């Protein structure tokens, strides 16, 4: 882990995103379309359904946002990075960048979704924290899976089948925490769920650091 090369790597991600604005716009449009599809398909969205559908929208949007993070750069450029930075720094920069991207996406999705389908959130502070934790967890799992899937020919299919079982514990915990924020369930011990989520994140990120060098080395 090299902190000095972290900043340039992060900067590179932002620059890349800025130069390929159509990709980001595509994802934002994707989220908006899904929100409208959900609304049109089920005009009145009751809070429990609101909750589940919101996280499903975020799940699909996140997969699509993260999957490009390895395929957008050519093999030759990957080789160039390989000579400049160590793999741990590289993946950490990507995870950090994707977390920010997903956080922005989820806030946008929340805004549009609550505009169209109503806003049943009763505890905005907790909900904000859940969005933050969600972006972090999704980012760690999806960035890692994307790095595996990008090596294969059928990367879109692989991304979906490889990440769903892995993301499930995170998603279930998030839905549960967000039902607390919507006051759908009474749970005074929800901090335990937050710790569970952080523990899962910690396990995943440790594995990512250990395993990523083997993925990257071609």
């Amino acid at each position, binding site marked *: 882990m090299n902190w000095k090369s972290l900043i340039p790597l992060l900067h590179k991600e932002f620059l890349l995103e800025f130069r390929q604005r159509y990709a980001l716009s595509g994802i934002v449009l994707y989220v908006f379309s899904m929100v409208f599809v959900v609304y049109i398909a089920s005009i009145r969205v009751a809070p429990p359904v609101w909750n589940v559908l919101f996280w499903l929208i975020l799940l699909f949007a996140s997969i699509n946002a993260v999957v490009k993070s390895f395929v957008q750069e050519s093999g030759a450029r990957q080789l160039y990075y390989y000579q400049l930075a160590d793999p741990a720094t590289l993946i950490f920069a990507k995870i950090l960048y994707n977390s920010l991207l997903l956080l922005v996406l989820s806030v946008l999705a929340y805004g549009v979704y609550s505009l169209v389908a109503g806003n049943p959130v009763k505890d905005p502070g907790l909900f904000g924290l859940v969005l933050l934790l969600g972006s972090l967890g999704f980012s760690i799992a999806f960035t890692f899976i994307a790095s595996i899937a990008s090596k*294969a020919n059928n990367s879109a299919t*692989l991304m979906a089948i490889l990440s769903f079982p892995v993301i*499930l*514990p995170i998603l279930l915990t998030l839905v549960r925490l967000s039902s607390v924020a919507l006051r759908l369930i009474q749970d005074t011990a929800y901090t335990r769920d937050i710790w569970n989520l952080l523990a899962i994140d910690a*396990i995943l990120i440790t594995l990512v650091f250990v395993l990523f060098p083997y*993925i990257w080395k071609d």
Partner: protein
Amino acid sequence: MWWKILSVVLLIYVLLAGMLVPLKSGIQRAEPAYARTKQEIAVRFYGYNTMFSKAAASGIRTWLYYDETYALAASRCTALNDTILEAVFRMPANLPEGRQSAYLNAIIDHPAAGASLLPAAVELTQDSGIVAATLDSAWTARPVHQLHVQTGFSFPYQNVIYESIRNTYFHVPMWFVLLFLFGASVWYSLRYLRQPAPENDRRASAYAGTGLLFGVLGLLTGMIWANYTWGKPWSNDIKQLMTAVALLIYLAYFILRRSFDEYEKGARLAAVYNIFAFASLIPLLYIVPRMFASLHPGATGNPAFGSQDLDNTMRAVFYPAILGWTLLGLWLANLRIRYQRLFDKAMGLD
């Protein structure tokens, strides 16, 4: 070679002993299940695997048991046939500790078949009227004593589970074998990352494949058990769902292996995913099930099946069952490894 024979011998023993050893006698229900104080009542006990008519008339003793100090003995027991016993109780005038009602456990002691217990068999309610201050002496007149213990080789009787207790030797070991095999698979995946030899990859994939087979078998035997005790084979219990998802992870592993043109790349990335998947099994099997209600023993406060439910007779079959199934799993994995080795040699890959 010897361990293959051992595995066959153990599994034959497990099949024979697990299926043929009888259950201990037990009480299924009592009728009527309600009684009032000062009432003389004939309670019929419906037994399972009991031999009520095989004992002498005075041989069977029956109690309604409140706690260690207070118990009511039946004044007369008549065996109507082998499975129905009629016991006549004269209910006392009041209940211990000034209670208005209490559930009494039934204890039936048979000289040959031993004692059996039915929890909360009869509810005794205080009749209206003036309640005497001093406790009726019937509670302490004939305490529970000198219970017979059945010495033969037999499995415990449990309500709801009944004969399906034998599934313990098939359903539970599947998960032991699954964990052993998935563990071995991760071990060889780690070795592959350190030293990329095709042999390590063959082993990792063969152990994962065999583990998957045992997972499916564990799910199926669990469904048989669920059908019998929970009412239907698939009730979307969180334990069932998470197990199915865990198996999906390993199916994804096999799809990943086949998604690459180069053998080395597929083997390396599959090894990475295998380690990642094994680590995500921990939240799937240990964290998530605790967040939801489950019917499965060992989850959300249900007593774990094992510690107090296994008696020595069951242990004598259960431990050989684990060893036997594990050896069978290793044998199956070994056949897959040898087949793959020959296949790779024939294709010129190794």
